[in-house]
């Protein structure tokens, strides 16, 4: 592993901020119960409260997937620039 002290890329980069936001968004959405504790609009007879949260299963999945892809790319980029001075 990186036992030679290299010039490291900065710990906080725009990509990492986006990753953090992707992972944090579900917490805001789900813990703010007041924003979705209502019955209307209903979807095929299912009150808003229920379908909205199920929709968030999909949204958070998509967000986590984006975070995963970005993280992978971030890691690859770091691996290739390791030893370089690119910051």
């Amino acid at each position, binding site marked *: 592993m990186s036992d030679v002290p290299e010039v490291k890329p900065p710990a906080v980069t725009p990509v990492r901020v986006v990753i953090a936001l992707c992972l944090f968004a579900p917490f805001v959405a789900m813990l703010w119960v007041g924003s979705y504790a209502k019955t209307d609009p209903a979807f095929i*007879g299912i009150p808003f*409260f229920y379908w909205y949260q199920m929709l968030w299963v999909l949204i*958070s999945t998509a967000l986590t997937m984006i*975070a995963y892809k970005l*993280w992978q790319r971030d890691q690859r980029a770091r691996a290739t620039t390791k030893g370089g001075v690119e910051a």
Partner: protein
Amino acid sequence: MKDGVNGVALAVFIFFFLAVTVMGFLAARWRRADDEHSLDEWGLGGRSFGTWITWFLLGGDLYTAYTFVAVPAAIYAAGAAGFFAVPYTILVYPLIFTFLPRLWSVSHKHGYVTTSDFVRGRFGSKGLSLAVAVTGILATMPYIALQLVGIQAVLDVMGVGGGENTNWFMKDLPLLIAFGVLAAYTYSSGLRAPALIAFVKDTLIYIVIAVAIIYIPIKLGGFDEIFKAAGDKYTAAGAGGIVPAEAGQWTYATLALGSALALFMYPHSITATLSSRSRNVIRRNTTILPLYSLMLGLLALLGFMAIAAGVKVTNGQLAIPQLFETMFPDWFAGVAFAAIGIGALVPAAIMSIAAANLFTRNIYKDFIKPDATPQQETKVSKLVSLLVKVGALVFVLTMDKTVAINFQLLGGIWILQTFPALVGGLFTRWFHRWALLVGWAVGMLYGTLAAYGVASPTQKHFGGSAKEIPGIGEIGYIGLTAFVLNVVVTVVLTFAFRAFKAPEGIDETSPEDYTADAGDPGVEAELPPATAGASH
């Protein structure tokens, strides 16, 4: 409830049960490695599972029979409040995305089998590691017992659970057989057995849910009718509702958050995680595991359907099996029951393995026989996994079901108290080990006392998991309140111990251990900010 035994359903149930039994025993030969006597082999499936097996294993592990029975049962009884399971499982995945790969790496590097192994290695404290191990075992035992409750519910509805008039032996015989078989193949095949059976379990569950969510609403006249009937019932009963009332929203959110934080503290979740082949398997899994959350959401809706279908049960646990029997043709009801029954076997097996690993590694090896060989470790683990199951069985057969449920509720509160040591430890060495231990004790004590003091219409103590949060005045999840208290105590005492230069213990891990990925040369050290600063 139909009278007598439902023959067709029972036949289908037995067919599937026999099929998975054969699979369970054959699993020992599946992907066998050279060193079959090590605990890694028996207890972690050789740490060899790829993305899909891990997905099935984790899914089979986290979404248990009890979940399938209890979540719709909660909806059936209280409406919206029971739906917190969905935001809870939504929050779990972004959360574990951040810390689970680190745990995997450090465990892989140092051969840790349990979370307590890690805590001992990180903080050089056997006391703290023992606290984590004991909490894990205590929290897991009632969980295993509840899997039995799940099987019992199914057997009852099929008519083989026995009525009031049968003697206890005949009544419990099917359950004894089911658990005898489970114990035997877990003993011989280890984690490979539930991993293989999980395929069957999840396939059955997905089929049943897909059919139920389409077929039952059609028969009941659509979701409009279903929710109307449910709304009328809650109004008439004066309890529950289609959406949570203003006062219930804090409870809803804190339950979701607290449960999400707690889930991957459970030993069985960690066992399934550590059995995976690489770091990426875990990250990839956080993106596909939410499929189960979707299923759970649909399943929860069955609680409303049970109301609309006119299912009337005094024991809410029976609502869903009863709904299946009422709505489905007999043979398909059999498939559904098999899904729930097998759904109990998979987690019960993994939980007993996880509890056994904790005992072997962190009590037996640390305190009783430090020079145990890997063969001895495996032997002890196998025996303990048997003992744990027998214990759970005795628990269910001799005590009232509510005791198991109370303990499971407490277990959730307790296990959350290991979060600071485990997840905190994964990112920083700043916390002092003694502070973590005191914080844990305070959290455990507060959580237990607070839960003891909650009364419900049917119970004087342990009537629920929510209580007024001191200082805020809203009703919130006790576990989360205890957790916050725990963290505050830990932080304050860490400052104190550091000021007095209390011995810190030896940290056997180094920062790059947390990002190591075995056998993957393309992955270089990734140094998230937290670690970069932690070791200095």
